[in-house]
């Protein structure tokens, strides 16, 4: 167990956690807009942490740089896809779910 392995392991665990949150969000959230939140954002951080783990595991150098580039592309494409989904939904005239639609949904 080198420090590198431990660091990569911690990052990977974080990545798994946020990907898990994304999956839970997808199942629990009520409508397309809120699900787009859950699916796209936690996923970005989850995949981002996993890529960071890859970069650490490679121990610097060009391969790590490439992992960093992958991250950049994901940070550009992921919100674009989420935006496309949300806008398509809005164009279809789908009304966003609100707390009113759910009895007893008292906010914090």
């Amino acid at each position: 167990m080198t420090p590198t392995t431990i660091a990569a392991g911690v990052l990977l665990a974080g990545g798994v956690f946020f990907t898990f949150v994304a999956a839970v969000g997808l199942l629990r959230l009520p409508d397309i807009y809120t699900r787009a939140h859950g699916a796209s954002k936690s996923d970005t951080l989850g995949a981002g942490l996993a890529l960071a783990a890859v970069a650490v595991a490679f121990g610097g150098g060009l391969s790590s740089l490439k992992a960093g580039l992958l991250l950049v592309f994901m940070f550009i494409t992921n919100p674009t896809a989420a935006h496309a989904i949300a806008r398509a939904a809005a164009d279809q005239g789908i009304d966003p779910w609100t707390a009113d639609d759910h009895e007893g949904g008292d906010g914090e």
Partner: protein
Amino acid sequence: MADNDLLIPVADSETVRQTVSHAADRAQERDGTPTLHFVCPVSERPANAADSAAAAEAEALLDRVSVWATDDLGDDASRVAIETSLVGLDVYLFNPGDYADVFGAYARENGVTAVVLDPRFNPLGMAPLLPPLERELEAAGLTTELAPVERATRRGPITRSAGLGQFALLFGAAFGFYQLIATELTTVNLITGAITATIVAGVLRRVSTQGSVRPRRLVGRVGRMLVYAPYLLWEIAKANVAIAKVVLHPRLPIDPAVVEFDAAVWSELPATTLANSITLTPGTLTVDVTQRHFTVHSLTADARRDLLAGGLERAVRFVFYGRAAMRSATPSERGETPDGSVDSAGIDSAQSASRTDTNAGDSE
């Protein structure tokens, strides 16, 4: 000949400019010598309507419209006639039927059979005018068409003029990226990279660059972008933790609402960067951007408050316009409030967000 004519009711709306340019396009498609009839309804009581303030405003609008139309027609301006007229001066316009009657009468007098409607045409104010107006006009035997302006982006040409500077910039970026991916600087890589980069730069320089290349501004923006990236990452991480809490919370305490606001960013690239940053930050999702008007779906009241506190917007302004632009007012200070908050918690935070404009507190 009158078959070629078009009737275009105009009123002051966000999309009137695009409607005019669509009408001009339609006129150019038609043979012969079509006439564009722009009519502006003046809803006023019959007595001395002609010299009222509303009539003066309408006249001014019609003047602008005919200048725009002449502009859009370009070379065809001599072939297409433009008529402008105030209508409804002698009647009291109250409901869609009244408007349809007035436009119908004008159409009959001038032998026009086709109407182009501005989707945002609504001189009545709040009540929806357009669908019933469309029906009434169709019933009166006129063909109607909505000008396609839903996405209120002006149709600019996709290509822009580009010179050596743009070519060099794209070539450099493509070549550098190629070598980075290739890992090794061998002769083969250098040659294939140069060929690839030449093709890329040659094909795309008119599409993917905008304006002239100003090296100092570019370096400044890239440098500030490097400052922005960690800030954005930190915001993303923070917000992700907050959303994870909400999603894993047994009661799922979400309070989604759509917020609309005008962002203080002024061109395509900053607006795109801001929109993507908003979407990346968990809890907020950009649904639509029209010019600088953002429609954002937010998951929680906290996410809304953060959005209108304007941290991201400020950071984007910093990247594109430099340090001085950071100090402009935040959305909440400009009086943008989250609309459509539903439960009491949402309204409370909405009010606290809008209240910050009274003490103008800098959030840092």
